């Protein structure tokens, strides 16, 4: 497994470079939007990657609540962390694209951007909870919150969808068909992003496993050392209370 890591890293680097070349040079310019549209090759694959990671987080959290296996909890944690990063990319690139195309940075009624923002908020609160918890069973609390967050997603989507139908919105091209060349490049980019996300998750997973092993060793070893030291001095210092 470990030997596979550098190979995958190199492959991912090549794939990312190829995808970048395709997105910026090979694919034709959009007739209406001009070159600015090329940001979708980052925006959309990031979004898909983030959603996939959040989905894995949800599934892992449910499995954790049933099976209580620490490894599954690490998967959930790692997916939430990396997912939040990709989600941030979506939220930054979205307005950059919207400004020249729609003329505004942010459309509160835009269903995709706004629900992505809510999703981002939910998973940031998930990470905050993990950081602030004083429980020895943070994993359980976090898994429960992840379930709540995932249940919220469809409700967020539909609430904004209906909200939008009642409010005037900028014209957003949703239904238009995509040039097959553009779709191909989009998928290549997604593949490259997925590989990259997988690599990051993998490293983070290994790091977290090590981290927890160190914590456990610390908890059990250092106390053993302290206990021994204290015990050695016991007969001198302690008499019956």
């Amino acid at each position, binding site marked *: 497994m470990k030997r596979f890591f550098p190979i995958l890293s190199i492959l991912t680097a090549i794939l990312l470079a190829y995808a970048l070349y395709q997105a910026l040079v090979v694919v034709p310019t959009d007739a209406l939007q001009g070159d600015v549209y090329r940001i979708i090759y980052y925006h959309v694959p990031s979004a898909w990657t983030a959603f996939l990671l959040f989905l894995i987080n949800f599934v892992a959290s449910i499995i954790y609540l049933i099976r209580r296996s620490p490894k599954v909890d690490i998967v959930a944690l790692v997916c939430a962390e990396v997912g939040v990063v990709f989600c941030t990319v979506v939220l930054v690139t979205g307005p950059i694209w919207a400004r020249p195309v729609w003329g505004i940075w942010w459309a509160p009624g835009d269903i995709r951007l706004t629900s992505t923002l809510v999703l981002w908020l939910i998973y940031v609160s998930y990470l905050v909870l993990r950081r602030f918890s004083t429980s*020895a069973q943070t994993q359980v609390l976090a898994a429960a919150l992840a379930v709540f967050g995932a249940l919220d997603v469809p409700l967020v989507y539909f609430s904004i969808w209906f909200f939008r139908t009642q409010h005037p919105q900028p014209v957003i091209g949703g239904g238009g068909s995509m040039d097959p060349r553009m779709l191909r490049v989009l998928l290549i980019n997604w593949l490259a992003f997925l590989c990259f996300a997988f690599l990051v998750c993998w490293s983070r997973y290994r790091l977290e496993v090590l981290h927890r092993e160190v914590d*456990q060793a610390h908890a*059990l070893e250092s*106390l053993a050392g*302290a*206990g021994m030291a204290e*015990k050695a001095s016991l007969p001198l210092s302690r008499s*019956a*209370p």
Partner: protein
Amino acid sequence: MSDVPNNAWPNNVRPAINVHNVIKQFGRFAALRGVTAEFDAGRFHAILGDNGAGKTTLLRAIAGLAQPTQGRISIFGKAPRDACRDLGYMPHPSLLYDEMSGMENLRYFAGLYGIGGDDACQAAIRAVGLDPELPRPVGQYSQGMRQRMSLARALLHDPKILLLDEPFSNVDVHSAAEMVALLKSMRGAGKTIFVVTHQASLLEGVADEFIWMQAGQIVNRTTNARTAASVRAPDSSREGAP
């Protein structure tokens, strides 16, 4: 004094509580570090040790309040949460609502155990030497009275096992002695009693066994309070009752 008092069950004691290799870890700190022990029914166990030795955590784990990170605890063969009717738990905080009177408090807690009517509550309050009719809210009790009311709460459902955390701290000598006498009579009535305390001297001649904890482990078990803190190799602590 070093022997078990003569009114104890002599030979047919059965383990009430079985603790197997329990670890409780909080991040980089482990409050319990592999505790393995059996505790006999009908005995009075005093758990001693320094601050941070894991005494309270062990008691909370037995009470089912803290889930072990690893390891297993069984009480009469059941998991702690399933054995809650057999357990009476009295920690150092009173576990009472300050704004309500003693009787109001106990009535509510009796409801949690499915005990209806005032008889059980009144009996429990009288058993600890207080007056059930006292209208004062618990917040205005003296510390000693509050401790006793708290004990009444723990006794309400007539548990087989009593778990007490520092019942003698912050009370005057007289109240502490009364509490000890109370516990002694309950042991006589056949209850298994665990007391976590700093004041081992109060329990000399009362407790059947003294358990010395250190750094999250049981390091010594003896029948004599004076030798409880003496050294033993950590492995020998797992051999069980003295």
